[in-house]
């Protein structure tokens, strides 16, 4: 009954969003990687005479108030954004998923309560507040931004994992696995986790894009990567005073953030569709 249209199989629909998404993400990753070996100009070198140029053939995206090349700074900034977001999501996944799986397998137990109330506690702090706290103790920097965003990601993944795992624990195939004598850990890894990966992938890409936004936000208020390391958020902050004089200073880092977030969201949607064998095999 639920046959998909012959002309547009599901994998095709999935790839229609996946391919542009992957292209955008690949572009950002490529820019970040290339920046390690080559950038059009050195981003640490000031060139005051060439300041505040509008886009031209030498400086594709123009220059800032110190005469630095915006295009080069965006390339190097991608490095910071990606590194912070990847590591922060990694912290969220590595800590949140085991916590959620454990809580679900012992639903109603004391440990479940402790884990989930602990999550509530972390959730109650805004990421920015955690970042300020960490900064107050350890000083500002990219590593502390990673830790702050990462901690904020833990309860997101723990809750998602626990919620979807709880309904899976009620399913007959989990019961069948228990009849086969499998323990909670094994069932969690073999049966629960594969069935929630698509949710985790989608949430992961959302958190990844939120991580990029959070990194930009933290840098904007000066709690992220410190100068001279370029960062999209700080580029936006620095452009603020010159917004009427040189709007391109805000435009290009803004576009970089938007396109990266868009690319990640499209990728997440496409991956979710592809990760389901019911869709893939049709």
């Amino acid at each position, binding site marked *: *009954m639920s*046959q998909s*249209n*012959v002309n547009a199989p599901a994998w095709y629909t999935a790839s229609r969003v996946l391919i542009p998404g992957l292209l955008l993400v690949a572009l950002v990753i490529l820019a970040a990687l290339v920046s390690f070996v080559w950038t059009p100009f050195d981003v640490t070198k000031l060139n005051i005479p060439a300041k505040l140029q509008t886009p031209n053939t030498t400086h594709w995206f123009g220059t800032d108030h110190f005469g630095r090349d915006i295009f080069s700074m965006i390339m190097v900034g991608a490095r910071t954004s990606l590194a912070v977001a990847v590591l922060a999501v990694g912290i969220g996944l590595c800590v949140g998923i085991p916590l959620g799986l454990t809580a679900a397998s012992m639903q109603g137990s004391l440990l479940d309560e402790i884990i989930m109330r602990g999550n509530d506690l972390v959730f109650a702090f805004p990421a920015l507040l955690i970042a300020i706290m960490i900064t107050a103790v350890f000083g500002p920097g990219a590593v502390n931004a990673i830790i702050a965003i990462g901690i904020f990601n833990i309860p997101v993944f723990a809750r998602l994992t626990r919620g979807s795992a709880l309904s899976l624990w009620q*399913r*007959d*195939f989990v*019961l*069948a*696995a*228990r*009849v*086969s*004598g*499998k*323990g909670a850990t*094994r069932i969690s890894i*073999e*049966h629960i986790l*594969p*069935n929630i990966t698509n949710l985790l992938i989608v949430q992961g890409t959302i958190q990844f894009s939120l991580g990029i936004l959070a990194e930009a936000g933290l840098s904007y208020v000066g709690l992220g990567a410190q100068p001279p390391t370029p960062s999209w958020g700080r580029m936006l902050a620095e452009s603020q005073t010159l917004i009427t004089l040189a709007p391109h200073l805000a435009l290009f880092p803004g576009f970089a953030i938007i396109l990266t977030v868009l690319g990640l969201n499209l990728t997440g949607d496409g991956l979710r569709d592809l990760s389901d*064998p*019911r869709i893939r*095999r049709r």
Partner: protein
Amino acid sequence: MITTNSNHHTDAQLRVNGLNLSIHETPILNSVSFDVRAGEVLGIVGESGSGKSMTAYSILQLLPDGSSLSGSVELEGQQLIGASESELCDVRGDVVGMIFQEPMTALNPVQTIGQQVAETVYIHGGVSRRAALKVARETLNRVGLPEAEFALDRYPHELSGGQRQRVVIAMAIALKPRLLIADEPTTALDVTTQAQILAVLKRLVLEDRMALILITHDLAVVANVADHLVIMRHGNIVEQGGVQEVLATKAHPYTRQLFEASGHKPDREGTSLTDKPLLKVDGLIRDYRLPRTRLFGPSRYFRAVDDVSFQLHRGESLGLVGESGCGKSTLTRAILGLDTIQGGVITIDGETVNAHHTMALSLRRKMQVVFQDPYGSFNPRHKVNRLVAEPFHLVKDAPTGNALRAVIAEVLESVGLAASDADKYIHEFSGGQRQRIAIARALVIKPALIILDEAVSALDVSIRAQILDLLASLVDTHDLSYLFISHDLSVVRSITDRVLVMKAGKLVEQGPTEQVFLHPEHPYTQSLIAAVPQLPD
């Protein structure tokens, strides 16, 4: 009774002629034609995929995207095919009422039953809220929910499944529709409730002189209620006519096949019954903790299984019948060692079962289980070979590599599937095939006891007959005992040697199957057996 009706009303209330339906170029219905008269019940019978539900949806044109419908549907002379959406909205709910299978999801949980019944009256009837509520009250009285117990401000969760289905019926008939369509209205209900709901429907049809289309997979259900019968297969009507004629002559081979499959008795002569007890349950008690009503109040408990004792012998097939909520599934989980019990002893071959991880794997090996839902009992992300091999977790020196493949091939072939099916995903199989895979999974480690928890309840009658045959033949080849749990008494009667009857957590009767069915002693057993719809012989 039937003939007098048709004498008075020769005009058909609903006339369906040459209905063709295809969805995305796939033909679903093929020139379906039938009439229903006022005050008459038309039964549409068919197995899954026969197009019986799609026929009903075509009448109301509640069809999925990409459907193309042609033919003629005349309701009291009004042509519905080609009617505009606003005209159809007037017809739906007003002239035509509809009842769906699942009473649990058909009601809005946050609205009172009074509001929900009054809603249809208010929308279509053009009356005030107060008048609508008055109609709702009267309608609820008519479907057997009197005011004293079922005030308008009750919520759906306070009612049982049968009572909810009565509310759904009240919603459908509140405006006295000319045509009522009931799609499997009793399939999700217990037998005694089913009998009551069918009686209510029959009474309402006669009182209001409605036409009723009763869609079901169960010939026995319509045999007692319907006046006319339409038998469908693969989108075609294979046979139609008065219910007595169709069931007496069984002119079409498919009708005969359906009829035989409904009362199918597998050949079980070869079974070797022994006196050696395999499973012993003694004084079993299982309590559930209820949610606390106050923060520091004492915990309250619900006793789901109350002092149950029985034995199952090697080679025996033991039935356990009871209605939903009687504790059947709780008992199953306790026997399988999945839940901690609060009292009593369960032993298998003299070894005690407990839900602790100390329970020996060698003991767990002795039992396997097959569940009801062929769609939910498999991890959709694994291939069949991995699914079937799962119980090997219980075996220390489990076969690997080619040896494992050979074992899986063998077990798949023993349940009537091909060895090559091992490399497919579970969604590539039909319900019946999935149930065979579930049996293969249970068989693969050669257990002594298989618990079949409503294992054939979700299957079509012809598939059910095949699975019952398979189960009967496996007893001999694999030296098995079954604990067969079901709400379906006719199935239990056909496959078990002894039967236990359970009510509200207690065993009320047990004995040899035929003796219990022919001479039930407990009043509850008697009411259960009396409620089973019977096919004429």
